[in-house]
């Protein structure tokens, strides 16, 4: 129909069918199209539809038939554009890191136990974040009054932190030897600020700064210490 014309040339019926199928909320049969367009006969409409199918072939949208009704839809190979997943990397807040560490060292622990170790209340969102990250899971309930939920770390946690098992976590004595138990201004500040605020300021203020350096030194630290104190 439009084959011998220059690129955009398209007859009126084809334009009308194109616009109608674009604007319609429901797929339309050739007969319904012909009825809608009034003075068009079914074979002409059918030809116009076929011409449109050919025109849209290879484009970002296709004219497709579903049980004798026609509609435009996004090309199948572009479906991923309609539902995009956007990944964003975010650093764990200080509060969440503390909670994760406590769970790792004390598991299984209840929220109340976490709070008693931290000495501050833990926001609900903090545990959610850790579970969303896949590092913490609910391991059941403790059989004590109130039956509190208890949390443990997951295999993904070990994997992410490069640990073969939980026993590879450095002990408290080793932490002290490494100077990590010395009171730090940071620690004091963290204690003085409520969880949420802590989280917010973490996100805003500290970028990725010395992450790689920190990681390296942590690793050397650990291996050095691992040699010194065979378990």
């Amino acid at each position: 129909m439009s084959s011998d014309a220059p690129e955009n040339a398209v007859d009126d019926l084809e334009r009308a069918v194109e616009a109608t199928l674009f604007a319609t909320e429901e797929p339309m049969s050739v007969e319904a199209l012909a009825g809608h367009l009034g003075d068009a006969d079914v074979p002409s409409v059918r030809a116009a539809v076929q011409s449109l199918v050919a025109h849209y072939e290879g484009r970002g949208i296709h004219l497709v038939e579903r049980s004798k009704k026609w509609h435009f839809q996004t090309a199948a190979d572009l479906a991923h554009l309609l539902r995009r997943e956007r990944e964003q990397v975010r650093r764990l807040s200080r509060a969440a890191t503390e909670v994760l560490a406590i769970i790792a060292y004390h598991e299984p622990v209840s929220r109340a136990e976490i709070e008693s170790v931290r000495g501050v209340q833990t926001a609900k969102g903090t545990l959610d974040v850790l579970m969303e990250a896949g590092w913490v899971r609910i391991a059941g309930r403790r059989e004590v009054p109130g039956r509190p939920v208890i949390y443990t770390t997951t295999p993904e946690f070990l994997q992410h932190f490069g640990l073969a098992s939980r026993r590879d976590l450095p002990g408290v004595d080793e932490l002290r030897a490494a100077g990590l138990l010395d009171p730090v201004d940071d620690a004091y500040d963290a204690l003085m600020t409520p969880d949420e605020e802590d989280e917010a300021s973490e996100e805003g203020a500290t970028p990725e700064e010395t992450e790689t350096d920190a990681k390296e030194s942590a690793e050397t630290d650990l291996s050095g210490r691992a040699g010194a104190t065979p378990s």
Partner: protein
Amino acid sequence: MSDTTEEQKQTEDQDQQGLMFTEAVASSDSEWIAPGTAETEGTALYLELDGWEGPLDLLLDLARRQKVDLRAISILSLVDQYLDYIEKAEALKLELAADYLVMAAWLAYLKSSMLLPKEEQEDPSPEELALKLQLRLQRLGAMRESAARLMAGDRIGRDVFVRGSPEGLRIDRKTQWRCDMYGLIQAYGQVKARTAPAIHMVRERPVMTLESALDRVSNMLGVTLDWMRLEEFLPPHAEPRLRRSALASSFVAALELARMGKAEIAQDEIFGPMRLRRMRA
């Protein structure tokens, strides 16, 4: 597109404000007939009463009936037409909105001062008032035309249509959390450091306990039957802080011994020296 423009003249859900007559002759969705097109000019005008958005709008329509450019209208004849119109409306006993009467009064004033000889005219001059009225009519006219042209554009849902059933775009945000070993251990270390149980060390201070004071005082009382001043029971050569402590505990020891009936205490005057001796058996 002229048909759509025509549609604009038809005023749907007529805004009642600004209507000049409280009893509208035609229903609110009636076709609004522009004065110029009315078949029988002069009568149609009076029958289409709900078409005007206030006196200025009525003046604008009257001005257009002069079929000249708004800049060329005769304000005097416009005033006459307006006053004539109001008169006829009153003759029909139609209730006029106050706006229209205010405008009529103002126009009557304008007309009378325009007819005065120049030297008797007040300030602002009637020419200025007339010119400003003309400028206002031009502006209203411009907006009325612009509104009509705007409405005559390709409007979505009337002239052009968007996709009937768009798939829609959705973005699912997924957060990839990161934390490293160092951060984890450091955090734990800090929690531990922060919450480690505090041990309070009290430095040893030179004191004489009540017990040793009791021993010392009762022993010394056994040596003599004479009165002795309290100070004499204190250890000699004691350093001042120990001496203070010893004084306090020796005083309490003396009270205690007196209570037990083992010693007598005497003081001759307030804040005077306190003396002590063994109770005679």
